[in-house]
């Protein structure tokens, strides 16, 4: 009996005794470079035809006369702080200065003007809430999205375009900057005009009007669209050679190119017929539009509406400090108001 089982037993023992298979080491030939991708990258973003013709509406509510009561303003004054949603990485527009730790930029100057008008000072009266275009809809319509909690804010600035699609959902102030949609490519890129991007990877931020143009068929030959949550991440992808171009507002692109001397802005392509992008402050809707009208008053001051000499306005001063060097000289936009 034992003699029959012995070979089996011996075999079993031999296997147990350590004939375990050592794994082969990974041979270091040419290892693949791991891709350093931002947290949110959608690629390719599906083509979605624009719903109706894209239109721009630049008219806003008339200025709130001084001394007029508004429940929205009262609530903010009682709170003593203004909650503002901005990007913290848009160089020149609104960014956190890594050296001082403070917020700086053209849009920050506008917010400080609003805070001063509200509280008498902009010192320690503003809470800067970091957000990008993806969050706008939820924040400004005061919805609670499922995936993450959003802080409700009083204002949102972020080169936000006044469009007919957005007007029904929230209020806009009057326009504070005229922007055009342009494209950023590497110096050595074969792309020479914005129409050349058919089949190439073009990056833009999710939720922006630029993304709507990219996916809505504004280009004669469809590019491969890459969507991220912040235009700055597009720049990282461009620097890593993961995309061929970044498509967004010229003000953002000019400030991105100012941080890297090996990229260039493509000229405006009239063939594409892209709409201009008037930037305004996004404000959650209230029945009396109190906040929008108040901000319009501050912006009228800021732009120096009606003044003959525009060169001394706060707008010019701020524009020249932050944007003129990379974007060229510019005049403050002319506001348009709804009839009261």
């Amino acid at each position, binding site marked *: 009996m034992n003699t029959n089982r012995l070979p089996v037993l011996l075999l079993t023992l031999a296997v147990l005794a350590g004939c375990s298979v050592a794994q082969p080491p990974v041979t270091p030939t040419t*290892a693949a*470079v791991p891709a350093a991708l*931002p*947290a949110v990258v959608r690629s390719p973003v599906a083509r979605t035809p624009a719903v109706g013709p894209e239109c721009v509406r630049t008219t806003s509510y008339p200025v709130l006369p001084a001394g007029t009561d508004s429940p929205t303003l009262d609530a903010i004054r009682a709170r003593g702080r203004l909650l503002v949603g901005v990007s913290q990485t848009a160089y020149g527009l609104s960014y956190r200065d890594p050296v001082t730790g403070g917020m700086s930029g053209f849009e920050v100057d506008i917010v400080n003007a609003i805070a001063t008008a509200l509280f008498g000072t902009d010192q320690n009266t503003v809470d800067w809430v*970091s957000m990008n275009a993806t969050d706008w809809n939820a924040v400004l319509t005061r919805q609670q999205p499922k995936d*993450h909690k959003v802080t409700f804010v009083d204002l949102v600035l972020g080169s936000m375009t006044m469009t007919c699609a957005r007007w029904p959902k929230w209020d806009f102030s009057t326009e504070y900057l005229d922007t055009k949609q342009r494209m950023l490519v590497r110096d050595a890129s074969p792309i020479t005009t914005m129409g050349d991007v058919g089949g190439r990877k073009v990056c833009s931020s999710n939720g922006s009007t630029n993304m709507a143009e990219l996916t809505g068929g504004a280009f004669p030959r469809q590019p491969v669209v890459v969507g991220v949550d912040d235009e700055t991440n597009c720049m*990282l992808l461009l620097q890593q050679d993961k995309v061929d171009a970044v498509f967004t507002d010229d003000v953002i692109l000019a400030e991105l190119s100012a941080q890297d001397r090996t990229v260039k802005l493509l000229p405006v392509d009239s063939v594409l017929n892209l709409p201009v992008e008037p930037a305004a402050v996004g404000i959650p809707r209230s029945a009396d539009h109190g906040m929008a009208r108040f901000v319009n008053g501050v912006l009228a001051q800021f732009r120096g509406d009606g003044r003959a000499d525009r060169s001394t306005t706060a707008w010019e001063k701020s524009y020249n400090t932050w944007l003129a060097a990379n974007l060229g000289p510019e005049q403050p936009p002319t506001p348009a108001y709804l009839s009261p």
Partner: protein
Amino acid sequence: MFDTATDNGGGRVSVADTAERHSDYSAPEPPPPNGLFLLRQRLSRWARRTEGKLTLVTAALVGLCLLSGLVGTLGITQRADLLNAVAERNAPLIQRTFTVYRSLADADATSAAAFLAGAAESPSVRSTFEKDIATAGSALTSASALSATLPQPDVQVTSTGCTSSSTPPAGSVAQRLDLLARNLAVYTGLIETARTYNRQGLPLGAAYLNLASTVLRRDMLPQARVLYDEESALVAASEGQAAEFPWLALLLVVLLTGALIVVQVRLRRHTRRSFNIGLLAATLAVVAGGIWLIVASSIEGGAVDTSRAVDTTQIHVLAGALTDAQQARTDEALTLIARGAGAQFENDFTRRIGCLDTALKNVTQPDIAVPISDARATLVQWRQTHGTVRQHDDAGDTTGAVSDVINAGTGATPTTNGLAGTIDADLSKAVDQVRARSDDQIHSAREALSGTEIGFAVLIGIALVSAAAGMWPRIAEYR
């Protein structure tokens, strides 16, 4: 065995008789007296003689000796090999992977804190980060060297600490280590880019820092975590196998002893000699071998069981607690960095701190009671200070909140970063203490086994020779 076919109950009808009877009939069956048949005839005749019987008994005894010797020795060798692997490769590999995990998590927390402090980072922050990266790199290299000789883990993995929401990606140990090494280069590159942009006052630096943290948290930490969990499970499995009592070997030893005794009793009855010195010596040798086997295995098994219990109930829990403390610290900084979008980090912070608290409550070992109670006291303080951080941040006092976390100045109150560091130090102390105890147990287990396989083999060998020597004169009497 051969004659079962013709064995009908009581009396034996031999194969030879049957063959002869068959040969009386001229037909119809053809006579089958081939070579094998003749051999069978001879064997069965020989086996019925006393000389043959004695030879068979001797052969059986020798066979049984060989079998028990083989089973016993191989079993001991196998357990000793498992313990050697645990002590010399698995346990150090676990320590290395844990070091990788901890240094990476610390690097993440440090760079987040550095970002809070602004571009003009302090030399101490810079050196902490550099030390983390160097430690992680060095631990990765030695882990790779260790893993090259290890079998592929094929074990049920139980995660320590707060379970991660991300699913563990598939891959071998070598693949994971390779991926970590490649990503470490990418991560350091991103951090240095961020640092350079920060120094120029450009916001691309913040974007690069964010990207670096994403790469670390998404692509690296889960790999290191899985590696740690897999190796821990592998050690637990190895220890489980090494602690098994050698029942089969013991059964064979008992059978052998019984057979030796039976043979001696029968021989005494037939030969009127009171003792067969050879068989007596063989019996004594087998009994001695059996006792050695039992004692060594019991000591070894007990020690391994203790070590395993320490591993699973103490080290695992403490290691989980350590990583939770690290992640909570990063969460706290990221909440401030991300500001409005920081609610997810605050939620994660609350979860991690909860896990840390539970883990600390579950550690009841008396010899590490001091560092654990220290850590618990510090945790209470951390929770209080975190409340202050939230108050300041919610009230819009970002500067105050940042100061509560990293205290760029020189405040008297401890910062949450400092408190997290204290907890980390306490828990590290406890882990080291407990790990040393576990290593001690494995060491005693190895000592208990050392020499056992040779001793057992020699004793059984002595038994074999003695039994054969004791039987030989009895067989010779019939020649």
